[in-house]
């Protein structure tokens, strides 16, 4: 929008280059062959829909949305636990905006706020720390969510809190890790994925090596991609090239940001403050071992699960909810029985519809019309 450009963003939204890539992609596709490419990261889902990237792809190439939406995979029980904490005496619960409308069994953070809980939105865990500093008589809790992109920030914040000797700050840790989720996806029998568009920002932390087993053991090409439309199109081109040439390798499209070896300092911070949980429940994917982080004993005073006697609620998804299947990529959003009827952005049943990058929200808000238009054009 407007004449002033944003550097390192607008150059990767150039329409002409997109058309060039699309033309190139079309030459790499075997007519009649079906290619299923999974984009793992919710940010990619968002970009794909927002910029209408699927319009640039030949029919043969289908994009499948993966489980890389850390909001979408939080089980309802954890949201309920967070609300329980928020309702404790003297607590200020702080959270990213993404979570405020996610429904637990007793409603969302916004609903809890309406009932009187002190819930404040923050942009950064550092802001949560500031609130703790400014309110020494209150117990401030940070609702930590996210894949490895966000985990280092929480870890660094805990280290900061420790250095300052803060006594009223703790983290309700719901950080999850991407590799176990990918393993669960690959173990899924009903999935036909030929290649992966890898999570660009998670990879700035973990690097590109961890994905090797996908290329080598499972024979699927894996390209780490940036988040602008040209990045995604280029990544798709690189995947199709590999498939055409019969290669399966890990490649980095997002070289301007992602170092192959990742960010050691970030990994150290995570390792200092946190450890993998033996197991963790993922909405739709079930219990996955070593797939989430918890705060180490050493920093127990910053672990909300130890500071508070959290009820550890387990809530089954509403029977109508098919978020699990959408997250695994086995059904498309519109194939969910309650999509658009009982479950809408206004009255969401599951996280896929609430989260701005959830596949269902993305399809409802963006993709719906594209489908309408394509169908209309087809029948004209």
């Amino acid at each position: 929008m407007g004449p002033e450009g944003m550097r390192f963003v607008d150059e990767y939204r150039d329409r002409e280059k997109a058309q060039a890539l699309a033309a190139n992609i079309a030459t790499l596709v075997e007519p009649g062959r079906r290619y299923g490419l999974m984009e793992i990261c919710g940010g990619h889902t968002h970009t794909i829909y927002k910029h209408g990237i699927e319009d640039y792809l030949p029919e043969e190439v289908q994009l499948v949305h993966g489980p890389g939406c850390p909001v979408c995979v939080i089980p309802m029980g954890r949201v309920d636990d967070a609300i329980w904490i928020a309702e404790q005496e003297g607590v200020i619960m702080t959270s990213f905006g993404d979570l405020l409308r996610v429904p637990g069994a007793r409603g969302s953070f916004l609903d809890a706020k309406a009932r009187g809980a002190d819930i404040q939105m923050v942009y950064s865990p550092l802001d949560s720390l500031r609130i703790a500093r400014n309110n020494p008589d209150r117990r401030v809790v940070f609702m930590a969510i996210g894949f490895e992109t966000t985990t280092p920030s929480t870890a660094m914040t805990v280290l900061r809190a420790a250095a300052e000797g803060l006594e009223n700050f703790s983290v309700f840790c719901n950080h999850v890790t991407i590799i176990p989720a990918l393993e669960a996806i690959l173990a899924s029998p009903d999935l036909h994925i030929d290649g992966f568009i890898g999570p660009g920002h998670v990879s700035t932390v973990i690097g590109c090596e961890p994905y090797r087993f996908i290329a080598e053991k499972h024979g699927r090409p894996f390209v780490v991609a940036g988040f602008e439309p040209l990045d995604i199109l280029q990544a798709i081109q690189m995947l199709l090239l590999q498939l055409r040439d019969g290669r399966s390798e890990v490649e980095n499209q997002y070289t301007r940001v992602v170092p192959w070896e990742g960010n050691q300092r970030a990994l150290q911070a995570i390792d200092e403050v946190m450890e993998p949980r033996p197991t963790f429940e993922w909405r739709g994917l079930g219990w996955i071992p070593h797939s989430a982080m918890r705060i180490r004993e050493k920093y127990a005073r910053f672990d909300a699960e130890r500071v508070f006697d959290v009820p550890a609620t387990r809530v089954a998804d509403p029977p109508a909810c098919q978020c699990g299947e959408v997250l695994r990529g086995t059904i498309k959003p519109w194939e969910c029985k309650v999509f658009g009827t009982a479950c809408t952005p206004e009255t969401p049943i599951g996280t896929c519809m609430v989260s701005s990058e959830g596949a269902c929200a993305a399809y409802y808000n963006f993709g719906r019309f594209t489908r309408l238009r394509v169908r209309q054009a087809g029948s004209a």
Partner: protein
Amino acid sequence: MCLGIPGEVLTLDVERPGMATVNVGGARRQVNVMLIEEDGVQPGDWVLIHVGFALAKIDEEEAQLTLSYLEEMGQAYRDELQALAESRID
């Protein structure tokens, strides 16, 4: 998970080591740069920011390489379109 935005480092905070002021199109925010300090952070550097932390420095050379590759592809495409258009002259 994913909302990382490129921003330009304006100043390093002298009073609070590890913090810098980063600018995104005129919107400025304090960002913790401790995760990339080892690479050396200077005013004028571009960094990727996510929830108030800089996760990586943006490699301007690589950015240019990517763009050049895309530009070449764009040129090849334009050339082909041109060739196609010219070949239509009967």
